[in-house]
């Protein structure tokens, strides 16, 4: 299961993805899309515009967390694992 969350849905300058590193990881969730994920990797992508050249500077930071509770109000989309075989 992949999960993309952001603190502010209209602020695409900060986009965080939280995804279990193994697709078989079981999770728990409720109707608000609060969820607990195991063996998580968070990938945060920030886009900044250079003041002078107006070039986009894309930065990606990654970190891993063993168990993470994610509050549902920040969730934008949840992507189930691909069905293989």
């Amino acid at each position, binding site marked *: 299961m992949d999960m993309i969350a952001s603190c502010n849905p209209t602020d695409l300058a900060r986009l965080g993805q939280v995804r279990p590193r193994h697709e078989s990881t079981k999770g*728990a969730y409720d109707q608000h899309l609060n969820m607990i994920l195991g063996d998580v990797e968070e990938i945060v992508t920030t886009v900044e515009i250079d003041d002078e050249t107006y070039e986009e500077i894309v930065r990606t930071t990654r970190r891993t967390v063993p168990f993470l509770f994610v509050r549902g109000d920040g969730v934008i989309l949840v992507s189930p694992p691909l069905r293989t075989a």
Partner: protein
Amino acid sequence: MLFFSYFKELVGKQVTVELKNDLAITGKLHSVDQYLNIKLENTRVVDEEKYPHMMSVRNCFIRGSVVRYVQLPPDGVDIEILHDATRREARGG
């Protein structure tokens, strides 16, 4: 309800709460309520150099709506029980 019950089980354990303003606070979970408001004891801000005004804060109440993540202690998570509870909750509504 599921996560309220779950967090009640976690009282007394060490957790890190990350807020939507990027502040991250570690502390012992003192209590939690139905809105997932959280009380922490013996708190420490993860990046103290960035938030020096938080250095003297040792206890705090966090409004549930400003929480982005809670990092959980690995021994406080029984994923099988949670998985079953999720199924029950989804069935029962």
